[in-house]
């Protein structure tokens, strides 16, 4: 029997496969396909202090091996989550992590304080990298002072595991990673989506209501993998690897590059069962390679 368990700071995941924020709703939606306890965890849909309607339709465009989205953090706000959603999912036998979003530092703080009260939420993922909102979002994540400031202020009010989600739309992502590590982040997750654009040549119009949107899917995998490798080599805190993961091999590559946990995002739109297949594939890989534990994969790239 191989041991699939991995640790991220002080929380344990039963396996390294989790779902990415904004691609798994509030875990209930995937529960219609499979038992949530099969996965290591869920990074729930980006949540804000107040209700947000998100951006106008159309919010999506298919691109080569990927897609652009411009959802813009549509959600009903943290209070709705606490009252209506949390009770429904609280007993899922898996890690539930809230993806926290603000337009101002005050928003982040207020949100975090509320989340801190939720017993079964052992970590938050601080999203300072959403490219689809006008204020806040990515603005904090693309400069060291911005990233440091939000991390520092949230750290003051949050006791549990603090994961900061980084934007790939930067010159040097390891610099930002080091900056948030310096302010007390317990882990970093990367990457969020790449700012991209799609045009309808016939109509001579953008395909998204917001003109630009966030690129995700296998197309971004090589860049995301490079960033995870750079960041894992730059910081001491653990790394959550995200970006275009479709198969167990992809997940393993991110772990070899230094990720302790991976998030599967867009892949689930293509096939909701992919995350479960990835768990099985990792187990199979470990057996084939005579490895005892998934944690042996972390950073095991031979260079």
């Amino acid at each position, binding site marked *: 029997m191989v041991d699939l368990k991995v640790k991220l700071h002080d929380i344990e995941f039963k396996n390294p496969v989790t779902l990415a924020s904004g*691609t798994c709703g509030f875990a209930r939606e995937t529960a*219609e396909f499979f038992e949530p306890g099969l996965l290591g965890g869920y990074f729930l849909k980006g949540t804000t202090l107040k209700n947000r309607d998100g951006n106008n339709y159309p919010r999506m465009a298919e691109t080569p*091996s990927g897609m652009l*989205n411009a*959802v813009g953090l549509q959600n009903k706000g943290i209070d709705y989550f606490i009252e209506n959603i949390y009770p429904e999912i609280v007993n899922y036998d898996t890690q539930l992590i809230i993806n926290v979003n603000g337009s101002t530092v005050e928003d982040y703080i207020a949100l975090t304080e509320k989340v801190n009260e939720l017993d079964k939420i052992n970590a938050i993922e601080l999203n300072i990298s959403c490219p689809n909102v006008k204020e806040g979002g990515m603005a904090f994540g693309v400069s060291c002072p911005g990233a440091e400031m939000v991390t520092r202020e949230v750290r003051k009010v949050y006791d549990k595991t603090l994961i900061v989600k980084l934007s790939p739309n930067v010159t040097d992502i390891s610099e930002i990673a080091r900056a948030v590590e310096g302010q007390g982040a317990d882990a970093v997750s990367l990457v969020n989506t790449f700012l991209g654009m799609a045009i309808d040549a016939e109509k001579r119009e953008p395909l998204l209501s917001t003109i630009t949107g966030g690129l995700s*899917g296998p197309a971004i995998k090589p860049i995301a993998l490079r960033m995870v490798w750079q960041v894992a080599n730059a910081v001491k805190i653990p790394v959550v690897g995200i970006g275009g993961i479709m198969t167990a091999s992809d997940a393993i590559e991110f772990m070899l590059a230094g990720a302790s946990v991976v998030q599967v995002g867009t892949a*689930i*739109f293509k096939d909701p069962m992919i995350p479960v297949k990835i768990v099985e594939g990792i187990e199979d890989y470990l057996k084939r390679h005579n490895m005892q534990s998934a944690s042996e994969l972390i950073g095991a790239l031979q260079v």
Partner: protein
Amino acid sequence: MPKKFVKEFTVIENSALNATNFLIKVQSDTELPEIKPGQFVNIEIKEAEEIFLRRPFSVFEVDYEKNVISMIVKILGRGSRKLTEIKAGSKLSMVYPLGKTFTYPSADDKILLIGGGSGVAPMLFLAKESGLPVENVDILLGARSKEDHINVDSYKQYANLHYASEDGSLGEKGFVTQHSVFTNNLNIYTKIYACGPDGMMRAIAKEAKAADVFCEVSLENLMACGFGVCLCCIEPTTKGNLCVCTEGPVFNINDLKW
């Protein structure tokens, strides 16, 4: 117990209904869950370059004995074209059943079903399922010309068939909303259902509102996931932005911001 599934079906028929519409029948080797008109499947387009996401198609007919689902696929772009080239015997991965059904008519309803473009399938399915006597079910199908209409004569047992065509080559000339069912008295109907191009449904909704008749439309917004996690398919409603894939595709026109 899962309520939604991802499964490989076997294609047992793919036949052209006319130049651009195809009837595709697929079979499962396990029992089908209950599937209602308006619900849809999300189909993986395999072996196609540069197609990344699945494509949603309404369920047209269900045969629970043989575990067969059929769809009517209209060629619109790359994915639908590729799908219409599939051979019997091939495998087709589907996510199903997705979305919600229509408000079923009650025994004393007289209903009008309007289908256009790729929206014909759910209307025919609903006509069959309505349980109403033929005389209480009118179907109005709209298309550019006779060649663009598909033959639905077998549905005469469930409904009265009316046609509109822009060039007048089948039924009345003009758009569906110019058809006599609209220009006469829309109030003879207690429920109107429509599925088709956006413009068509908006025009119908306008007439239905004016006549104050109950009206549901089935939307075909662009989708990424089809099961409510991506929030890409939203439609602005009086209750906020709702997911067409989980809270629709069927909406009461009074809830829409049309």
